[in-house]
């Protein structure tokens, strides 16, 4: 089993969805009843991987959410950001990423860290404002470990 789980809860006209595990051929995306829902928040913090069949299943499911006014994507992990950049239409047009993870790396120690970039604080429509002064456990400076033109591409779209 891939450990896929989709949890949902409703607060007024806000539908909160969180997805856990591996999005693949076994992922059971259920049809949503969106009556009375204006905004959907999708938290992807615990998505560990998505494969090529999972991409197809995600696109089919996310298209079915197009009827609401806004979709907010939270805690988007690198494995999903890569797909957002690579696959046009991975996110529906009414979806906006509110926060996503960026890998940092220390050339000295080889240590890695995932840093959460938040809309309004670290990025907005005008560009990216990365946090500075991130250090590894030995005090060495860590740098953003992506090709920025590719990884931040989705912010321009």
């Amino acid at each position, binding site marked *: 089993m891939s450990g896929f789980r989709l949890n949902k809860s409703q607060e007024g006209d806000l539908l909160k969805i969180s997805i856990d595990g591996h999005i*693949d*051929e076994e992922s059971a995306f259920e049809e949503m009843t969106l009556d009375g829902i204006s905004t959907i928040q999708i938290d992807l913090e615990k998505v560990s991987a998505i494969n*090529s069949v999972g991409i197809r299943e995600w696109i089919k499911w996310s298209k079915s959410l197009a009827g609401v006014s806004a979709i907010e994507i939270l805690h988007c992990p690198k*494995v999903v950001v890569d797909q957002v950049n690579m696959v*046009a239409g991975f996110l529906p047009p009414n979806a906006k990423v509110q926060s996503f993870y960026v*890998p940092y790396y220390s050339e000295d120690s080889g240590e890695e860290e995932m840093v959460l970039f938040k809309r309004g604080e670290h990025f907005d429509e005008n560009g990216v404002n990365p946090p500075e002064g991130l250090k590894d456990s030995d005090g060495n400076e860590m*740098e953003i*470990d992506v*090709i920025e033109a590719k990884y931040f591409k989705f912010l321009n779209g």
Partner: protein
Amino acid sequence: MSAAKKLDPFESQIMAALNELLSGKDHYCDPLNPFYDLDLEFLVRANSLPIFSKATIEDLFGPREEVKSFEIWKLSDKQNLLDQVQVAATNFGMNNTLIEDLLACADELITNSLFNAPFAQKVDRGIKELQIPGSEPIRMEISRGQNEVLLSCTDPFGTLELEAYFRKILSCYENGIADSINYGPGGSGIGSFMVVERVSSLIVGLVPGKRTSFFCRFPTRMSSRKRKLVPKNLLAFQRKEST
């Protein structure tokens, strides 16, 4: 189909490599790839072997510092296998972004081998009880060399059509991924593209009717950013064997 896609230099390099293989060449190796010599050495070794279909990882790549081997018969064991590969990769000291890329390749290769290699018709991805026929499993190995790690996936069917395989990947670059996704029966049609996107070297070894192997090489001790800037090597080895 969408308007002509604007290519970046990385995509252009991969497309050049794919076109070389589609023109009948057995390799496209870039001198700036850290595995330039090692990958060419594979071809020398493979060509010198009397029987490719039974060759081990050491036969094909020389001595390895450590090898972990796994086998799989059915789809329901896939996540367990991926978990074991993840443990092995972690024990090899690989960093997390590299492990993510390696696992993504392992997933695509295993899924493809289970669904496509043994069957003539497209198989619905919803079949959870899927099991391969025959007396030999699909084998996956992860092995460590100096500053590199090699992931291999071998099926005993040897049904891959090399030209169609490379042409499908090329079409993903030409048309874009969104326009390449198959929403009909069978796989999504983009799995092989996703493998090529993540590896530094991809070697395909084929003995029709007997063996298809994929070997993915990744540099270790390198930031993810530098790893993504490495120009890719693509190689294809094919031989008919009667015994």
